[in-house]
């Protein structure tokens, strides 16, 4: 089990994590953060494989992934 944490206030909603997640579990939220962007978020954390492709592609170091985590 992996816990994917988003430093939400840094996210610029670029959608790269959304695109590169092989499990298709990341989406951009409906609301906007303080910067005015729709931040990325995960609906179903259980599907996450911890592959970190999302983090690899994130240009704003928004994503950290820890094993075990809150799940």
């Amino acid at each position, binding site marked *: 089990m*992996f816990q994917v944490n988003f*430093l939400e*206030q*840094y996210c*610029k*909603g*670029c*959608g*790269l994590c959304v*695109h*590169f997640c092989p499990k298709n579990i990341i989406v951009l939220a409906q609301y906007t953060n303080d*910067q005015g*962007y729709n931040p990325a978020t995960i609906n179903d954390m259980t599907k996450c*494989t*911890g*592959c*970190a*492709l999302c*983090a*690899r*592609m*994130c*240009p*704003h*170091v928004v*994503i*950290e*992934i*820890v*094993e075990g985590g809150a799940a």
Partner: protein
Amino acid sequence: MAKKGYMRPPTLLQKPWHFCPGCNHGIAHRLVAEVIDEMGLQNQTVGVGSVGCGVFSYEYFNFDGIGPSHGRSPAVATGVKRVLPDRLVFTYQGDGDLAAIGTTEMVHCAVRGENITIIFINNTLYGMTGGQMAPTTLMGQVTTTSPRGRGREQGLPFRVCEMLATAEGAAYVARVALFNPAQVNRAKKAIRRAFETQMAGLGFSMVEMLSACPTNWGLSPLEALKYVEEKMVPTYPLGEFKVPEGVK
């Protein structure tokens, strides 16, 4: 990337960045930080920034940093390295900074075989100043100063790696891209090899990264990555142009 999970590299300060959504500068910053951390060099590094969208690098990295004038980072790095030969000294430069105004400084670091590393972010234009044509602009590409698309009168794309590889003093020269996770991994390896080249005292090293500028390309972050893959790579082929014996 054998171990799973992912943590922010400690040499990256936790701050919001000014980069636009989807800008590949952020990925490049992160990779540099990761390699420095993995090599345990945080306390031995002097980062030399530049003027361009990477201008705040010294505010984002958690190690000693210098903000030089536009294009002169390789000269500044030379000054640092001659005084502190055992430090990891690298520059972080855009294509305008490195390949236009800073050409002399770049070429002579390579020719002298100055033992520094250049991290070169090629996004085919002057990002920070609003998207003007650079020497690296693709043929036909529209920018604010090539409004009809770059034509022959405006020159031809500058292939920096190919040129610098002709210098005997250049030990490691590679071109990588950041348009998907596999490329990002390759890019990271290239940075590592460049830094290893330097720490082994083998001479000049450079990693060019083909890098998306969604804002000035007028593309979405995803389209911009596709543009790198489909439009940039044919003009700027990826690969290692020079690898020193000790680092293979």
